[in-house]
């Protein structure tokens, strides 16, 4: 008994850790969007601010990228959904031998690294274009055209998986019944199979659009001179991070939760109605219940909440607080400089004796990994002695300044 209790406890602890790992980073990121610190962080907390959203709204590049992404997403949905449908239908009809071979081909774009799809699309159309005598301004080198094709290549496979799952639940005698009653094959397809597949068409379209919107690996190659929301976001992150990127995450997370909640409300309603009988009656006959449980009501409430949050946020002014933090920092800086000056005077006086154990490290990260640096008694981190007085407003060192970013090493 006690061992099983311990097992339960272990299970719960594991789950908590796991979901902590899943959500922790996202929660932190969301919080940083509301901290006035120009570097995204939670501790120390400076001031609650909504300025980063304002900055985001004024980011023309990101908005252009978003517009491009919406265009590309629409194109991908329009192509990938019919392709996925056709492929799933083909698989459901062919014999077992051919099915295996076809499935392997159809699924291969999912297993292929995304960058390879982007590169091969770029290569093929580029060579085709130049082979046919077209220039770089032709459609063969157009980022939108290439990105749509590149993304369709593998998103069609996702779409196909959705249709396969739905088709597996289709009762083929329904088509036979329709034929038996005089419908032509095309009529049976249009009136029986297609209506049955409608939910899958919807899911496939949503999934294709989201996959297109968030794709990076393929797009970064096929987009050529244009940009999408995600490539723009990535270059923003690589050039230097600030909390307006966290603000993007907040917006996306809010939209995701909105979608998830409305979808869940819709599903529950649909499930209750499909169950029929008392469960459905409880929803339909009670006007209050019918109103509250309706997905549109849920959506309206959420829209109101989000709208209210935006309104309140836009009215919030953090200038006073930010100023006071700045002042405090300046005062702290001056105090540090003062200390430094005194210490240097001290050192000058002690010059003959050798520098102590805490010698200034030759690299900015010097002492960190030395054994002595770990588990030391002085928990309060003393300001690094070597910190140049000119940049003290970032006490966390220069790690995140643009020039220390992972720069591609030139291989040649």
């Amino acid at each position, binding site marked *: 008994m006690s061992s099983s209790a311990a097992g339960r406890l272990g299970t719960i602890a594991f789950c908590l850790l796991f979901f902590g790992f899943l*959500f*922790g980073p996202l929660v932190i990121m969301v919080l940083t969007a509301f901290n006035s610190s120009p570097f995204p962080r939670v501790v120390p907390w400076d001031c609650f601010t909504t300025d980063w959203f304002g900055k985001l709204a004024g980011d023309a590049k990101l908005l252009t990228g978003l517009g491009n992404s919406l265009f590309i997403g629409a194109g991908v949905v329009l192509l990938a959904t019919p392709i996925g449908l056709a492929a799933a239908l083909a698989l459901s009809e062919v014999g077992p031998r051919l099915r295996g071979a076809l499935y392997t081909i159809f699924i291969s774009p999912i297993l292929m690294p995304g960058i390879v799809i982007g590169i091969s699309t770029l290569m093929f*159309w580029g060579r085709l274009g130049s082979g046919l005598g077209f220039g770089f301004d032709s459609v063969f080198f157009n980022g939108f055209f290439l990105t749509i094709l590149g993304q369709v290549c593998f998103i069609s496979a996702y779409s196909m998986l959705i249709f396969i799952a739905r088709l597996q639940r289709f009762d083929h005698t329904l088509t036979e019944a329709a034929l038996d009653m005089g419908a032509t094959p095309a009529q049976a397809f249009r009136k029986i199979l297609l209506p049955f597949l409608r939910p899958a068409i919807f899911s496939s379209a949503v999934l294709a659009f989201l996959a297109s919107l968030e794709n990076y690996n393929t797009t970064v190659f096929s987009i050529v001179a244009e940009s999408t929301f995600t490539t723009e976001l990535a270059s923003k992150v690589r050039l230097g991070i600030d909390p307006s990127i966290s603000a993007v*995450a907040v917006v996306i997370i809010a939209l995701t939760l909105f979608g998830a909640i409305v979808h869940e409300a819709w599903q529950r309603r649909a499930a209750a109605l499909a169950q029929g009988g008392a469960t459905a009656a409880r929803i339909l006959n009670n006007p209050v219940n019918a109103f509250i449980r309706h997905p549109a009501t849920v959506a309206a409430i959420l829209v109101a909440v989000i709208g209210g949050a935006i309104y309140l946020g836009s009215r919030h002014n953090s200038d006073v607080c930010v100023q006071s933090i700045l002042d405090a920092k300046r005062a702290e800086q001056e105090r540090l400089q003062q200390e430094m000056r005194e210490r240097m005077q001290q050192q000058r006086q002690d010059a003959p004796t050798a520098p102590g154990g805490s010698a200034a490290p030759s690299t900015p990260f010097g002492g960190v990994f030395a054994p002595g640096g770990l588990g030391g008694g002085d928990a309060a981190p003393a300001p690094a002695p070597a910190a140049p007085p000119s940049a003290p407003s970032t006490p966390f060192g220069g790690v995140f300044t643009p020039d220390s*970013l*992972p720069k591609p090493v030139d291989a040649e």
Partner: protein
Amino acid sequence: MGALADFRQIFARHGAAVGLFIAGTVALWVFVLIVLPQIAMVLISFSHNLPPSEQGGPNDVYTLSQYGYFIFGNDGGFNTLHLTILAKTVLASVVVTVFDLILCYPIAYLLAHGARQSMARLMVIGLIVPYWINEVLRAFAFRILFGSTGLVNGVGMTLGLWSEPIDFIREDVALYAGLTYAYILLMIFPIYNAIEALDRNQIEAARDMGAPWWRIHWRVVIPMAKPGIASGCTMVFMLTTGALAAPQILGGPSNLWFTQLVYQWFNDASNWPRGSAYAVILVVVCILFTLLMMRVFKVRIGEIGR
């Protein structure tokens, strides 16, 4: 012959219009979007890097030089830098895959057999929601977390575990954590699908016969989960090896991921043939790994990607 009969069957069942739609669309997808681009990439990887004016000219001949460069560099010795990067990428991907497996197997098992229905539903939503968020943003979240004033350093130093901020970025800790995080979902669901088919009575029967929990898993659950594990491992490995955003955002400045090399050949050096060659090498590595997984777990490709 068989294929022809199959297609006749499609036409007979859905009519000529639908049949043509299916055949045409599938052909377009397979040939124009999948096969021909791959062939083009492979062909270009065997060519010299020529300006457009010389393409198709007398100098445009097939060559192994792009692959030669990957192995020998320019000076005839081994191109240790790039070979090491490939080896490191593969090794790190294997580590990330194994780590994901250890992390995800218990969750998949709980989801399938441990948790109550409502709890499982909530868990599934909890698993999916983070994956609706952009890959770049997920990497960014880890960047914040592991920054020198990030939460990890903050907690570590407050607890007195270390006294100076550790540069997790340079140490690639952030990268491995971010990659592990990135593809959790793709490990959980295949395993879940496989385990779900397991009859619960089998577990109970095994428990009834006095088998300890680890033996139940080893003898009953894991054999059932095998296709799912193979599928999950293959996909996580593929995506990790092929990841670009996470290494670009979380990778240390001196440690490159193999995909970043490919990226450089295209964007920084504008050397398409060499970039293609490196991309082909990446694909070959991925295919070899898939074959290895299928060998090790004795599963067929049709079971992967479900």
